[in-house]
């Protein structure tokens, strides 16, 4: 119910709407809750509304931390 999915913006449409895709599936969604949406952005999508933008740098930082923790586990 409360699960959201990451989608990529393909096209910004009028009235705070956008065309997004997830693995090739297209959908028209509302971007009224998020500012400055641009094509190429990744959004957290839930019940037809974008709730947040995904920050690519922070996403990379999380992966780096996960790899770091995994490397320590590997050594353990």
């Amino acid at each position: 119910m409360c699960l959201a999915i990451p989608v990529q913006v393909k096209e910004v449409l009028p009235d705070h709407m956008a065309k997004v895709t997830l693995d090739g599936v297209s959908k028209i969604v509302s971007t009224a809750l998020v500012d400055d949406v641009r094509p190429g952005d990744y959004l957290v999508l839930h019940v037809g509304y974008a709730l947040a933008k995904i920050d690519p740098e922070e996403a990379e930082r999380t992966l780096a931390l996960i790899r770091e923790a995994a490397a320590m586990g590997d050594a353990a």
Partner: protein
Amino acid sequence: MKYIDEYRDGRLAKDIARQIAALADPGRSYHFMEFCGGHTHAISRYGLEDLLPANVRMIHGPGCPVCVLPIGRIDAAIALAMRPEITLCTYGDLMRVPGSNGSSLLKAKAAGADIRMVYSTLDALRIAEAELEREVVFFAIGFETTTPPTALALKAAIAKGLGNFSIFCNHVLTPAAIQNILESPDVRKLGTIKIDGFVGPAHVSTVIGTEPYEFFAGEFQKPVVVAGFEPLDVIQAILMLVRQVNDGRHEVENQYIRAVTALGNEKAQAEVANFFELRESFEWRGLGEVPYGALRLRPQYVAYDAEKRFSMVTPAAKDNPACACGAILRGVRRPTDCKLFGTVCTPDTPMGSCMVSSEGACAAHWTYGRFRERARQVDVGRAVA
């Protein structure tokens, strides 16, 4: 799929699990509650519990809005939907939730009620615009993630002058429920369980931020790690919780930095505040009356409030006494402890709400967990033989 697949690397998950095992003090046990049904689902689906050392255990909390909706609210919605002028729109999860005497929205639909499953409040609005002669009621449910979409639908209905659109509001709040788990009077009745920390729901925090948990972590001295829903997100959060417990810390940490900030989505919060206010008390299935645990429409929007507009009554209704959903939602009992589990209660014939939503603890265990248990029994059998 970007931002999904890279967080599902099983090899990395095993390495992190080894790190958890190395850090977990063998002289103590660690009990963490994942509050959100999305985490319960991920933990079951990816078998994360099998990766954890025996002294680190996950307890499934009440964080599924469908599971915590009391039976009386379903009965009220069914009674409304049976009225000839009403079109009831709702998210798919609600359709099979059992009401009283084996009723459900799905059965009411089969009996002729105009009930339509929608993916989004945008769909409900479209129906109201297209069918002006119908009274279109949106059965609104969910935690902080689904509330802003309901607020925006209301805003759009007002802007478009849609007089035939209204909302049956059942939106609930996460921090209030977490607090209730630790301090409500029912704890004495149902028993209590040891909880050393919480995995907080990331998608809720995209809206409310991590800040609402600060008071909670300080007041109850329990660490909270707000975590994403992919398996690596969850296992990283467990590692972060083990570290906090070992250090004697009780802080709010953010694992989902890729989309969650301390303050959350302030635009969404403002839209919610415009249209909703706190209910002093709201019944949650399994948790009883939760003070300030839910929202209702502000009085100035009474014309859009289905409860007022159609004089809806919420009948007092009791769950099947054999159903252990209440204790399961609190983490006091496990799905397999319920005598209905897997006999009369399955996802095809759910008796209690924990079996209805795929994010419910019982449905997650039925779909994934029981096969693990069977595999373990076979292994033990082989070892004995």
